[in-house]
Every structure is written in C-alpha cells, then in structure tokens.
C-alpha cells in the first residue's frame, strides 16, 4: 500500500519526505537500534520512540524508507536534516507504538 493511505488513521504529521510516492509492505517496531540492525527480512517502515540521528543511519543500513516516531515525541533537529539529505520519510504520531503497529499490521494484511 501507499504510505499516505495510513497517514490520517495514525494522526500522522510528515516532518520530511514524500508519503505519496512511498509503497510499504512490511514493518518493524523496536527502540533498540542494535536489534533493528540485526533484523532479518524486509522492513519498509519502522515505529520507534528513538529520535537520535542514528535512526536515519540505521534505517539506511536495513533499508527502512519511513520512520514513525510514536507517543507524540519530536525528532532532534539533526535527525531531520540527515533524513532530508538521505531521503528517508519522517513522520510523527501522537499514538503509541502498540496502536501504530496494530493499525499498520491490519492495513498491510488486509
């Protein structure tokens, strides 16, 4: 599905990047970056509460194209800059990781 289809349901705000052109089919929910790096298999989107700029670097390594920051948190300024440079979509949502995972899981399975 296109990422933009989920934007309203997650009350998401796009911080940088284009959700219209992004196709997603798999995701990961995790706050431990070393765990994300050792993730086997495909992940287009990543739900986390970590906002440090390392999330962009880790996203590039594992092929994640969109990061959703949960719990109404804000990205660090250097994280936004890095994501813009590297063309990674950054979205933030007031919802928790559990709700976000449920919404995406249901939409992607359906």
């Amino acid at each position: 599905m296109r990422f933009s289809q989920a934007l309203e349901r997650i009350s998401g705000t796009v911080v940088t990047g284009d959700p219209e052109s992004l196709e997603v089919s798999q995701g990961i929910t995790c706050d431990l970056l070393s765990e994300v790096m050792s993730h086997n298999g495909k992940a287009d989107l990543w739900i986390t509460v970590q906002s440090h700029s390392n999330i962009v670097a880790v996203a590039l390594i594992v092929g994640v194209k969109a990061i959703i920051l949960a719990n109404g948190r804000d990205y660090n300024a250097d994280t936004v800059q890095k994501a813009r440079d590297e063309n990674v979509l950054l979205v933030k949502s007031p919802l928790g990781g559990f709700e976000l995972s449920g919404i995406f899981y249901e939409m992607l399975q359906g």
Partner: protein
Amino acid sequence: MRCFKADFHIHTCISPCADITMTPSVVAERLVRYGIDWIAITDHNTTRNVQAFQKALSRNGIKVMPGIEIQTVEDVHILGYFPDVETAESAGRAVEQRLPPVAIDPERDGYSLLVDETDVFMDMVTLPFGFPTSLNIEEALRLIGSFGGLPVFAHVFRGLGLFYQMGILPESAKGIPLEVYLLEKRALIPAYCGTFPTALFSSSDAHTPEALGDARMEICCESRIFSEFLKAVRAEAGRSIRLCR
C-alpha cells in the same frame, strides 16, 4: 612514572541498584586487598557520595577521581570524570535537574543512601537516580565538557551501552573513550569506529563488594591527578592506560 592499579567505574550505596553495603569502609577493605590504588566513584545520575568516599579512602592511600554515570534519554550510560569534588558536585546537581518528576518506591526501585566518611547513613534520597534523564547523548557530552570533565561511554557492548542501544557510532561520539567490560570484545571496535583512535577503559562496574576484584586496567603516569589522567587517556608524553587481561 608509575603504573597505578585502577578501577574507574564503582557504584556506592546511593545508586539504587547497588548493594546498601557499598559503604566507604567496605569498599576500602576490598580495594586494599586487591592493591587497587586509584578509583572513580560513578553513581547513577548523582555525585552526592563522592566526597565521603574521597575522604574515607584517602586514609587507605586510595585516590578517588570524582565521577558520575549519566543515563541519557536513549538509555545510553555515559561516565563523566571531573577535576575535583566541587566541580563534580556542581555537574551532579545539573544532572539531577534533568531527572524525571516521578515518585519512587525504595522497596521496589532500590534505596539511595547518602553516607558519610565513617559509614553512617545520613539520609535516604528519594530522587529517581535509576531513571533515564531527559539529556540526550549530545547534551550529556556537552554537560560533562562544560564542567571540564572527560566523558567515557560505559560498557559499550552491553545493555545500556552505546553500541547496544544505538547500533552504530553516533557522529558526536567520535574520539570519545570507550569502556569495554569483556576485553575479548575489543576486537569488534574497529568495525564500529573504523580507524579512529579511541582510548579504551575496562573497569568493574561494581554494584556489590564481591564485584570489586583484580584491577582490569593500569594507568601509567607521574601522579594520580586529573591532568596526568588526561595525558594517559591521550597517550601523551609516555603516559598510557594499559588493559590487564
């Protein structure tokens, strides 16, 4: 030039996860037994017990470097070492300002006991020292630096360590010394840091008297003062930090 047996990561009874028996006389007794003569007190998010330990351990000829272990918002532990107690206490107060406003239950979260140099418990502090502060990694590094301190990333390959939490070396962490708990993990460091020269530490991270033992490193320098310590960290003028195992 001398090589001092050192342990630069020791918790006291004010760290909620440390044993309440981590009092000056108990720690001194173990350190004397193992011939360790230069240590750092590094409690979680506080420096309130440093002075008592420095006074008490000096009677046994053990020098205490004032320190702290800051927990960042990313759940990364960063050690900070300071030139003197007063500076460390100021830095400690600045860190305490960034603790979350949560009420703790000492029975559940552990006791934070302020102690004097004669092992007398002076107060039970109810601040949440065991919780992450609101400082991010970069803010914690800046805070330590603003007090003239030296930051070191604690137990980088373990839980709450830099590489475990953050996956890769953050830009801001380049060149900052790393503490490695298991020395066999040293071989992994080039994969994380490239060819960047990084000073390595190894300490006990003792939370109980039993965890204090053989020194894992020696600091070779002229005398046990902060400026000589910095030279050893930078491997200047023949000074060095040598890992023992």
